[in-house]
C-alpha cells in the first residue's frame, strides 16, 4: 500500500469539497474492492475520503412507491431489511448472496455501484428495477448510469447518496456464482413493473446490460416458458478461466428463466 492522506468528513459537503480538492482522491465506502487494490499496489491515491461517519447515508426506508437505500448501507442490512423483504424480496435475495458474510457486513450498495465491477450483483438489481442513482448533484436513471467495465456516468466530485428503487409488481434474481470469488459468472434480475418488464444481466459481459429480447417475450407472458425460444449470442461475452463465453451465453437464459420462476 502506498501512503495516502486519510479524511473522515462529517458532512456530504465536506466530503465533496475534499474529493474536489485534488486529483487522485478517492472515496472510501466499504472498501471491499478498493482496499485490496491498494494493498496490492494496483492503485495509488493521494488521499482517501472515508464516508463512514456519514450516518445519514445508512438505512433503508419506504417512500411511497419507492424503496430508498442509503449509499452506505451494507449488503447485510439490505438482506435483512423488513422493508426490502416486503417490497422487493428479490433485492434481499441478491444482497444476501453477495460474496461472503464478511463482505456483506462491510460492503455497501453505493460502493458497489460506484466501482461498477462487471460481475457485481447490485448492478443487475439496479438496472433490473429501473432504479435511480441519487448523488449530491443530481439523479441518474440506471439506464444512463452504467457505461462500461468499471465505468459509470459519475462525474468528478459526485457522491452517490442513495438509490431509489421503484417497487416492482414482481421481481426475481438468479445467479450462477464463480466458485472462488462468488461474484456472478452470470446473474439475471427480472422485474415486472408498471412500465414494462426489465431483464438485467451481470457477469456475462464487460458491463451489466438489458436483455431486450427476453423483456419483449416476458411482456407478452410473464412466465419462464416465454423464454423457451430465446438464445443469447456468445459474441462479446466474457471468457476467462472460470467460464467461456459460450457457457455464459447459455447460462444467461437459464438464470433468466430461474429469475422469472423465483419472481415474487
Amino acid at each position, binding site marked *: *500500500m502506498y501512503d495516502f492522506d486519510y479524511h473522515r468528513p462529517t458532512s456530504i459537503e465536506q466530503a465533496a469539497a475534499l474529493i474536489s480538492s485534488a486529483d487522485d482522491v478517492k472515496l472510501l465506502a466499504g472498501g471491499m474492492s478498493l482496499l485490496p487494490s491498494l494493498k496490492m499496489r494496483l492503485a495509488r491515491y493521494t488521499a482517501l475520503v472515508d464516508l463512514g461517519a456519514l450516518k445519514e447515508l445508512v438505512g433503508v426506508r419506504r417512500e411511497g412507491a419507492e424503496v430508498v437505500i442509503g449509499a452506505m448501507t451494507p449488503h447485510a442490512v439490505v438482506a435483512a431489511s423488513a422493508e426490502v423483504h416486503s417490497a422487493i424480496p428479490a433485492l434481499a435475495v441478491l444482497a444476501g448472496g453477495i460474496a461472503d458474510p464478511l463482505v456483506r457486513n462491510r460492503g455497501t450498495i453505493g460502493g458497489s455501484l460506484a466501482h461498477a465491477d462487471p460481475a457485481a450483483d447490485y448492478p443487475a438489481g439496479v438496472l433490473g428495477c429501473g432504479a435511480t442513482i441519487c448523488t449530491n448533484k443530481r439523479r441518474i436513471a440506471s439506464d444512463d448510469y452504467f457505461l462500461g467495465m468499471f465505468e459509470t456516468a459519475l462525474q468528478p466530485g459526485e457522491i452517490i447518496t442513495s438509490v431509489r428503487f421503484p417497487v416492482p409488481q414482481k421481481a426475481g434474481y438468479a445467479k*450462477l456464482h464463480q466458485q472462488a*470469488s462468488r461474484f456472478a459468472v452470470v446473474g439475471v434480475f427480472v422485474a415486472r413493473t408498471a412500465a414494462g418488464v426489465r431483464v438485467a444481466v451481470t457477469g456475462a459481459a464487460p458491463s451489466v446490460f438489458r436483455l431486450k429480447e427476453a423483456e419483449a417475450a416476458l411482456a407478452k407472458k410473464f412466465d419462464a416458458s416465454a423464454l423457451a425460444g430465446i438464445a443469447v449470442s456468445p459474441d462479446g461475452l466474457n471468457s476467462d478461466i*472460470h*467460464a467461456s463465453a459460450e*457457457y455464459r451465453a447459455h447460462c444467461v437464459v437459464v438464470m433468466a428463466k430461474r429469475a422469472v420462476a423465483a419472481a415474487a
Partner: protein
Amino acid sequence: MHDAAKSTHIGQPVRRKEDQRLVTGKGKYSDDYCVPGQAHAVFLRSPHAHAMIKSIDVKAALEVPGVIMVLTGADRLADGLKPLPHNPMSTHKAETPLENSDGTPPFTAPHYPLAHDRARYVGEAVAIVIAESVAAAKDGADAVEIDYEVLPAVTATLAAAAPDAPKVWDNAKSNVGLDAVVGDRAATDAAFKRAKHVVKFETWAQRVTGVTMEPRAAVGAYDRESGRYTVYAGSGGAVKLKQDIAAVLDVPADKVRVLMDDVGGNFGTRGEVYPEFAVLAWAARRAGRPVKWTSERQESFLSDYQGRDLAVSAELALDADGNFLAMRGSNVSNAGAHTVSYAPLKKGLGIMSSIYRMPAVFFRARVTLSNTMMTRPYRSAGRPEVMYVMERLIDIAAFECGFDRVELRRRNLLTEAELPYTNPFHMTYDNGDYHGAMDAALKLGDWAGFAQRRDEAKKRGRLRGIGLANYVDTSTGAPRERTDITVRADGTVEVVIGIVSQGQGHETAYAQLAGDWLGVPVESVQLITGDTDIVKVGGGAHGGRGMRMASLVIWNATREIIKKGTRIAARMLECDPSMLKFVGGRFEQDGSEKSVGLFEVTKAAQTLADLPEDLRGPLAATCDQVHHEASFPYGTHVCEVEVDPETGSVQIVNYAAVDDVGRAINPLLIHGQVHGGIAQGAGQALYEQCFYDAASGQLLSGSLMDYALPRADTLPFFKTEISEVPSNTHPLGIRPAGESGTTPALGVVINAVVDALSEFGVKHVEMPATPERIWRAIHGMAPPASPNNR
C-alpha cells in the same frame, strides 16, 4: 505390546490441549517473531516464465528512503552460497527406486536461492530488498531495474515432455529428467492379448497448491561473535531445515539454529527448504541486523511448492468374468523448473494397482521439467492421483463392459488370506481387512438405498450419482526419529521430539501416549519440537510418519524411564526391584500398601546420595530409533453428488468414509484429519487448479478470487468411521491417518459425478469437474478453447 499400550488415555477422544491457545489468538506463528533491530525484506520475483537476466541495476533502489540493501543473484554467487540440497531421487527401503531405462543418471539441476543468470518460472526470486519497513522495501523493489530477455517457455505437462519443447535447462538433453520403466512388458502384453476386455483412460491430475492458512514467514538473524545464524521459520520439522539452511550457507550444521512454535498448515508445501529462508539468514549477515519477511497470499500462490500435476494414460485388461489380468500405461509428472522432488511420481507408481490382485503391469514413468513453480509431495505424495486413475478405470470397465461396479471391485480386491501381498510394482502390503472396510463403507453410505434417493432427486430436477473408491496409502517417510523424555520434579513430563505439528494436534496426541505409559495426566505432558538447540534429531511431519514414529520412540523411552524408576523406587522402598509393579504412575510393592509416585522418584533421583551413576539426575530417557517397515493405510469412501443438469453445477450431498488406522490413539483427531483430508481431495476434484496460461506461462489463478477452495457450505456433514486392524509391521499396530481423507477422495467424487451423468453416456469428466465441464459433458461438447495446460 498391544495390550500394554491400551490404557487410560490411548483410544480416548481427548479434546485438543492446544485449541484454547490457538482460538484465543495466543498461537505463536512465524510472523509473530519479532527480533530487536529487525529490518524488513521483500523478494523481487521474475514476471516472466522464462528469461535471461541480462542486468540488474539497483542504484535507484538504494536511494529510496528506508532502503538498506539490495542483494541479487550475482551477490549470492560472489558470496559462495550453495544450491538448495534437494535430493529428488530419495528412496525409502520399502520402495523400488526408479532409474533411467537407458542407464544414464537422472537429470538434476542446481536450485540456487536467488536466480542469477536466468529466471525459469513466474515468481522465481531474483533479488531481495532490505529496508526499514515493508513499504520502503516495496518502494525499493519498484525502483530496481532488471533487463530481461524473454525466452520461449513451456508450462503444460505433456507439452513440456515433448522432444521439441523449449528447454528449461540448456545442459539437459530434453525436459525429461527421468524416464524409467517398471514391470514385466512381455507378461503384460501377453495378458492384454488374451484379455476379453480392455479399457483405456487418459487424464491429467491437475496442478494444485496447499493454500496453508498461515502464509510462509521467516526472520533471519546472525550473531557476529559466535558466527551463528538463527532462522525463525515454520516447517514440517526443524532439524532437516537447519541442516538444509546450513548446506546453502556452506557452514557446519551447528552454526544454524532453527526456531518455530505454531505452524499453520503444511500438506507437504512446507516439507522442503525454501530459497527465502536461506537468503534471509545470509541477508542478516550482510545487513548486520535481523531481516524479516512475510509472504503475501499472492506470493504464496506463486512461490509455495505446488502439488500433483500428473498426466496418465492407462489401460486395464480383464477376462470375461472381470478378473484383472494386467495394467499398462504411462505417467508423466511435472516437476516444475528445478529438480526438487521426483517422489510423487515414484510413490504413486508404486501402488498404481492399489489393493487389487494384479498379475502383471508395465508402465513408463517420466518426470518433466517445465517453466512452472516446483512440485513436491502434497498430502499423500502421488497416491491420490493413482488411486483416482485406478478407481476411474474400474468404473469405466464396469460402464463399458457391463459389470456391476461393486462386484467388479469385490472380485479383484485382495483377501486377508492373500496378505502380505507384493504388488507387481514390488511394494509389499502389510495385513488388513480390505473387504471388511468396503462392506462397512457401503453400509455407512447406504449404497443399497441409493436408487430411491436418485429417483427422489430426479423429481426435483437433479441428477444424483453415487461412487465408491477403495484405496491404499503408504508410509515411507524418513525412517529415523528420536525423543528425549524427562520427568520433572515439578510434576510435568517434558517430551522432546523432532516432529512439529502444523495443526495435527501433536500436543494432545503425543501427550496421550506419554501420559498413558507414564500414568500421568495428559495436561502434565509438555512437548518441545521446534528448537534445534534442544531437538537434535528428527524427521518432521510427512509421509504419514508422525504418529507411527512418535509412538515407537515414546514407547521405548517411557519403558526405559519405568525401568530406571523401578530401580530407584526399590531403593526408596527398600525392596527388591522385582517386587515392584508400575501402575497408574506409581511404583507399587507387591503384597504391601507401600508405593511411591513417579514424580517422587524423579525428586529422589536428584537427591539420594548413594545412587549409582546411571540413575542420578532427573528421571529421563532417550530413544533414537530407525524403523524401516512401512504400514499401509487402506479403506473405502462412498460419495453422492447432485448435478443441476441445466448449469452443470454439482453439490456433494453425502460422503461416507471407512479408514483403517490400525490403532486409534485419539479418534477425535483422526476424524478431524479425515474431514480435512476429504475437503482437500474434494477440492481438487471439483474446484482447485493452479492455472498456468499455456501461451505466456503466467499464473492466472494467483489469488483466492480465482483459486477456488471448498468451503463449509459446499460440503456436507461427513460420515466417518475408523477401522482398527492392527498393522503387523508396526509394534503398536499403527497405520497413518493424516492422508486417508485425501487419497481416495479425488476418485470417489469423480466416480459419483460421472455416475450422475450416466444417462447421457458420459464416460468421464476431468478435474476440476467445474459446472462448465459437466455441462459440456452432458451435451457431448468439446472443451472450451480457453487455455488448458494439460
